């Protein structure tokens, strides 16, 4: 029998959500072309899933090494604030004085978020702190740093070039979708065409054994946290460009949780080891499909949270060996009665 991919359950639930919409939400699948770009609920799902998808890419590798990165939401806020600060340069922030430098916004913001990721990597890989606590640190302090950079203000700006990052479209497809696609391809190549993926899986399954076969588990761990920081920075740039403002308090709030949920629903075990980038993408799309469905059906958005919780627990239960055993026993017993 061929091995069923670990993301099968997530894909089935996603298909179920889409099928539900096909049957009950009129016009859900209609795509119109306006101003040379595609519009429609499906396009919207891909577009809005991009930030969480990017976070999930970095998070997948982190989780595969047996860790977790709680700081991605805060790093998004830092990245967004750096970019907005460099573009707008309002008074009394560290950015004040000097000319606005929109050209530097993206590289500097990405470098800043890479540094955040490296800080996490340092704590986890070199000092060997538990990942949950080590990244909790930046999650708590990161928003403080972002607010410090913005001097407590919400930095707003107008820069059509930067805004195109989130609002523009290339070949009819929104730019965030392209960014996510490029990220996905890069990560897939890194993970599957080089030995990196194998090293990551080895580190996550058994760090001691990995060390014995000559894998530098420390370097691998450091690298995945750095990459996760970089992904978070990119996601932060998209959300900042989308709303043309950097809100240190709310940018990326709870998005770390969405990313972790997307990864684990996608079939990557939180304990580390095997991972699936495709699964994480499906997970991210599932999260967004649920949200979009609820919004288009006019149900109050609070229910999204409840539904997300239910879906995650459901998918995790289906993946849990203990629950499958109980289920299997029930099914076996049923015909005997």
């Amino acid at each position, binding site marked *: 029998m061929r091995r069923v991919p670990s993301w099968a359950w997530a894909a089935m639930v996603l298909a179920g959500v889409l099928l539900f919409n096909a049957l009950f939400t009129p016009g859900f699948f209609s795509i119109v072309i306006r101003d040379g770009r595609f519009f429609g609920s499906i396009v919207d799902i891909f577009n809005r899933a991009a930030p969480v998808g990017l976070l999930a890419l970095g998070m997948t590798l982190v989780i595969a090494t047996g860790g977790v990165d709680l700081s991605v939401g805060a790093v998004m806020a830092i990245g967004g604030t750096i970019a907005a600060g460099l573009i707008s340069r309002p008074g009394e922030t560290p950015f004040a004085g000097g000319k606005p430098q929109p050209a530097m916004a993206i590289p500097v913001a990405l470098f800043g978020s890479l540094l955040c990721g490296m800080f996490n990597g340092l*704590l986890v890989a070199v000092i060997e702190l538990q990942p949950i606590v080590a990244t909790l640190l930046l999650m708590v302090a990161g928003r403080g740093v972002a607010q410090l950079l913005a001097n407590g203000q919400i930095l707003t700006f107008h820069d059509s070039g930067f805004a195109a990052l989130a609002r523009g479209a290339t070949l009819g497809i929104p730019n965030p979708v392209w960014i996510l696609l490029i990220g996905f391809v890069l990560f897939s190549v890194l993970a599957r065409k080089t030995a990196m993926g194998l090293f990551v899986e080895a580190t996550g399954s058994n760090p001691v054994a990995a060390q014995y076969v000559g894998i530098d588990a420390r370097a691998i761990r450091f690298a995945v946290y750095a990459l996760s920081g970089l992904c978070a920075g990119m996601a932060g740039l998209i959300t900042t460009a989308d709303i043309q403002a950097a809100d240190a308090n709310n940018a990326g709030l709870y998005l770390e949780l969405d990313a972790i949920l997307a990864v684990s629903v996608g079939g990557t075990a*939180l304990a580390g080891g095997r991972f699936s980038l495709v699964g994480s993408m499906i997970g991210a799309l599932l999260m967004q499909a649920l949200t979009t469905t609820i919004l288009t059906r006019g149900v109050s958005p609070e229910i999204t949270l409840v539904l997300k919780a239910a879906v*995650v627990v459901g998918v995790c239960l289906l993946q849990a060996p203990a629950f499958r055993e109980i289920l299997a026993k029930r099914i076996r017993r049923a015909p005997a009665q």
Partner: protein
Amino acid sequence: MSRASLKEKLPILITASVLVLLTLAAGLRFDNFLSLRVLMNLIADNAFLGVIAVGLTFVILTGGIDLSVGSMMGLGGIVAAELITVSHVHPLIALLVPIAVGGFLGWGQGTLIAKLGLPPFLVTLSGLFLCRGIALAISRESVQIEHPFFRTLTNWSVSLPAKASLSLGSIVFILVVFGGMILARQSRFGRTVYAIGGNANSAELMGLPVRRTLVWTYVLSGMCAGLGGVLFALYTSSGNAISGTGLELDAIATVVIGGTLLSGGYGSVLGTLLGVLTLGVVQTAITFMGTLSSWWTRIVIGTLLLFFMLVQKVIELAARRGQTT
């Protein structure tokens, strides 16, 4: 002092010294800082956080984590407020309901974790979403609580010398701390909790009721979070579905600063109390300064957290070296 007890005692001693140093520094800087009144206010302001942190301590001692406490507190607050204001239930009953709700949800989470082997991190993360969703579905707006008996409760306090007073919330907090200390150190449940945190397999082989105890730690944490919601409702005279956002992180930080290892097995409720007080002193000192903005609180807490994690690491390494030589 033997190595083992050094590993156990040293973190709490360091927390205590940092707390004393911070308090003295703030006391030297500000004239009125070292007064009973400031201390009592500090306790009253952090009572809900403290109660939640005590419950969380037990979960963390087993090596688990409960991320749902913040939103469960929000749920508890809004449930209490709705019951009193909209359903006209007597406050005495309405204030007990959130504790039961928290306990029930904690039981559900504990069952998924202990009986079905799902990761605590993921289950309680879903719990976070679930509670916040339910709370927002109950009421999106803040609900004011207007009831004569409730007002008596919020205004009630024990007068102390020097214009200080001990509010009902503070008394509950202190009682919960004492209860937690007794439960952790003097009960069979507490011993099992430490045993699970030390090594769950050994505990199982010793014949300890590992799964049942695990479920109960999450029930306890849920009940404490519900109680935290009640205290917050008393503190603000209202219920708000989004209250307690991000509080789970403050609570975890408090527990870690208090010297409890996140890997389980080592720690104490007393340490958590010291952690709450440290957090409170930082907040109060920053408020006293006036010119410093609130986000400095988060940066200082982050720095403290880093400091304590490094200290724990050093102790751990020292203990390991002691074992091998």
